[in-house]
């Protein structure tokens, strides 16, 4: 247990801590130290299947190791596509656009293969990583909901944006079709019945995450509100004297070039 705490949970906690440190304005080396801690934390979390193989928590590290590759490909691909378009600064070449599309496509196909074929994350014991069955339905449902919401928002809030929203609706359609197929056709490692169960549990998960996050934000706002209310009022100072006003007028007139 102590080993799991030191080699998995502590490095996992280092990730948000490194983000906080990198935000600090008081420390000069904050960003550098934050980046170093982030890298150390990530490496130790990803290495947890080897450092703490007996701990059930290391299954999370195992999952992150499996999904790191396609996640980077998809996000980096989208970055290349986005910045090869009409951006005012740092525009990339047309070749980068096609490279980005290719990376995005490979990343998404990789995710699909992880579900349908033998690339599914499995533990050393040979059983399927149960966190994969939590991650993948959550990812698919979130992606479909977010793409649909963004597409509708583009149509409602944007001016003549129907052509641009089609990409988001296409992605939404593709994700929904994938979910329906996975809910009805068995993959090599997971049955469709299992997947259906995890899809409904994922919806419960997402509802819970939304409720919990809203509650946390409300408590955060209440703490700030009550703290600001308790702060003493700033000390009021005396109005400026005639001499001070004259001096100010002199400085202002010298700066705006007024002769009067």
């Amino acid at each position, binding site marked *: 247990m102590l080993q799991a705490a030191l080699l998995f949970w502590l490095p996992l906690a280092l990730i*948000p801590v490194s*983000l906080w440190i990198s*935000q600090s304005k008081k420390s000069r080396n904050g960003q550098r130290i934050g980046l170093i801690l982030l890298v150390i934390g990530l490496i130790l979390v990803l290495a947890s299947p080897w450092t703490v193989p007996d701990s*059930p*928590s290391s*299954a*999370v590290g195992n999952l992150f190791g499996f999904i790191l590759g396609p*996640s980077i490909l*998809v*996000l980096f691909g*989208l970055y290349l*596509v*986005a*910045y*090869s*378009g*009409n*951006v005012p600064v740092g525009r990339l070449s047309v070749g980068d656009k096609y490279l980005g599309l290719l990376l995005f496509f490979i990343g998404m196909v990789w995710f699909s293969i992880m579900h349908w074929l033998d690339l599914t994350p499995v533990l050393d014991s040979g059983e399927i990583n149960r*966190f994969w069955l*939590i*991650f993948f339905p*959550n*990812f698919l449902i*979130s*992606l479909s909901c977010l*793409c649909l919401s*963004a597409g509708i928002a583009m149509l409602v809030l944007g001016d*003549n*944006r129907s*052509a641009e929203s089609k*990409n*988001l609706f296409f*992605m939404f359609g593709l994700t929904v079709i994938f979910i*329906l197929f996975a*809910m*009805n056709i068995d993959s090599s490692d997971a049955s*469709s*019945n299992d997947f*259906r*169960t995890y899809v*409904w*549990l994922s919806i*419960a*998960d*997402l*509802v*819970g*995450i939304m*409720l*919990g*996050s809203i*509650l*946390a934000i409300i*408590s*955060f706002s209440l*703490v*700030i509100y*009550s*703290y600001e209310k308790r*702060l003493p009022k700033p000390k009021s100072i005396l109005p400026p004297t005639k001499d001070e006003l004259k001096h100010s007028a002199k400085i202002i007139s010298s700066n705006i070039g007024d002769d009067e």
Partner: protein
Amino acid sequence: MHGFPDLSMDNINPRIANSTLTAFILCSTFLLGNMYFYGESRDRPLAPLFAMIIAISVGFGTTIFFIEQGDMLLEDNGSVIAQLVYNISHTIVSIFALMLAFGIAIGILFSSLTHSKAKISGTKLSEEE
């Protein structure tokens, strides 16, 4: 086409409750870091930090209390600590899935916008000038 699997509200309700409580603890912990920098800007870093720690403790206390009630929030795990650790791992994985989906949706949105045709033509701009 199949509908609901063999899944009752007895399975779904503990998941929503566990997820809500754990998301509250994790989000509050992340906001605690931000609270420190807020307090730092007010020259009294510990006052709001203390209040946020109380909020997190309430979250932990509530979670442990409900898990200890037995079947209510205890899923397939044997003890309170095992359930608590599983909840945290489970929610971290779910939040990562949500963040990845968010990144992809924003990426597609941004790519669509940067590759769309300009809405204002050059001639129209010069006419307006």
